């Protein structure tokens, strides 16, 4: 993975989030406060702008700039949380960026969110999409799966993870205020995490 592929990742993520903005906002309206789509859309627009203004030279720098921009421009819970994922990835990503290096950094990013949000698997948050994606990546590395296939598997795991939040009862974030009533709705942050992984799969597929 090089810097331009990493930039392409955020551009594609921005496109998908913009396309699905209203869906994310609607998911958030059901069990939160109805701003997740606009929050992320605003944040990723700023990320694109920042990446275009001063194109970073390495994937690590792309991730750090994206993370910092999300923290500085989004607000809400998802700003600091997504920002931390990418900042932590940028901080820990080893060169050259092999699948193994990417997988390791991604896991660091997920751990950072779990720590910051004090969230665990099953709490009905973005962690429920991110953690399975990280696990899929790690397994792919272990089994020597090719990059493209590995990322596809991670994207599928994230999508399934997001689906799996539907029957969960939320224990973190705003949805937790609803208690039982949070059951039956997909977590908006898990849904947007699935979009991030879908975006990665798309740019990796197209780069191949």
């Amino acid at each position, binding site marked *: 993975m090089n810097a331009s592929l990493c930039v392409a990742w955020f551009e594609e993520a921005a496109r998908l989030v913009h396309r699905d903005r209203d869906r994310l*906002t*609607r998911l958030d*309206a*059901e*069990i*939160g*406060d*109805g*701003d997740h*789509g*606009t*929050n992320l859309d*605003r944040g990723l627009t700023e990320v694109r702008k920042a990446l275009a203004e001063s194109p970073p030279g390495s994937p690590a720098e792309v991730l750090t700039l994206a993370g910092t921009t999300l*923290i*500085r*421009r*989004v*607000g*809400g*819970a*998802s*700003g*600091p*949380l997504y920002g931390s994922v990418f900042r932590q990835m940028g901080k820990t990503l080893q060169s050259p960026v092999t699948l193994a290096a990417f997988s390791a950094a991604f896991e660091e990013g997920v751990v950072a969110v779990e720590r*910051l*949000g004090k969230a665990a698997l099953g709490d009905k948050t973005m962690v429920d999409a991110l953690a399975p994606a990280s696990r899929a990546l790690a397994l792919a590395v272990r089994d020597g799966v090719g990059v493209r296939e590995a990322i596809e598997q991670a994207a599928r795991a994230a999508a399934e993870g997001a689906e799996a939040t539907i029957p969960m*009862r939320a*224990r*973190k*974030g*705003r949805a*937790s*205020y*609803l*208690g039982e*009533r949070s059951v039956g709705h997909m977590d908006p942050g898990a849904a947007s995490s699935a979009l991030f992984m879908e975006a990665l799969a798309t740019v990796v597929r197209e780069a191949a």
Partner: protein
Amino acid sequence: MKKLINTAESVVEDALNGMAAAHPSLRVRDRVVYRAEGPRPGKVGVVSGGGSGHEPLHAGFVGYGMLDAACPGEIFTSPVPDQIVEATQAVDGGAGVLHIVKNYTGDVLNFEMAAELVEDVEVASVLVDDDVAVQDSLYTAGRRGTGATLFVEKIAGALAEEDAPLAEVAAVAREVDERSRSFGVALTSCTTPAAGKPMFDLPETDVELGIGIHGEPGRARVPMRPARELAVLAMEAIHADLPLRDDLLVMVNGMGGTPLMELYVVYAEVAAFARGKGARVTRSLVGNYVTSLDMQGFSVSVCRLDERLTRLWDAAVETPALRWGR
């Protein structure tokens, strides 16, 4: 949805411009609302903030005897660390700065990050978590900060004005939070400019009990009933958690779309309930203070006063939305 806005994107900016134009006592810069006269050396700075859509909270409480700065985020979205850092550094008069933070994941995270980034300023943080509709357990993000935020801002602001040290101002803020409880009821949902339609559908026959201030649905939906019964439901929930006795400060707060007349109807019932429990309502506030855009409904907030808190509540305050004593 019809709203008095120019565009959904510009609404926070446009409203801040209006505030700046309407109140010469305020100065608005980079999405932070300050007292025009700036920090007073030796005084603890008091800063709060949170998503927009709760007006007059917080910016309407910037002024003598209350906040030094407010950081408004986008609608229902907590502010970003940059704003909070800016505000904190700008209002420090050398005695440190208190952050008053409503207990929501987003607010907590952004204020925490800001506190870490602030340089050369001593920062203390107080979480407001007064909403009895949420169980404070391992299975939730903890109680939400709602109406009592006003109590905390007023009383901490009054003590800061007396040049009390940061630790004391933080302590009184925590004390107010501990002595305060709130409960909200929605008659209608609210509509964010971005979404353009109500957050949830609430039929003509029902109300939501235990709502927050972000258009989140409540804990339960029950059939609509007279104001008296709704007031009693809210007060029972509060009383079960914090037995009402001695001197009380009571606020009946409108959610933004409720006429004042109806709030007075509710207040009469709330006051009667408190009296029925043998408590004395010695201070009160009725109006739209901690709102949720255009939502119809009300919340009740109660604080158990003592002599000191009463004195601090009564101290002069001069802000756009709360003013007495000067």
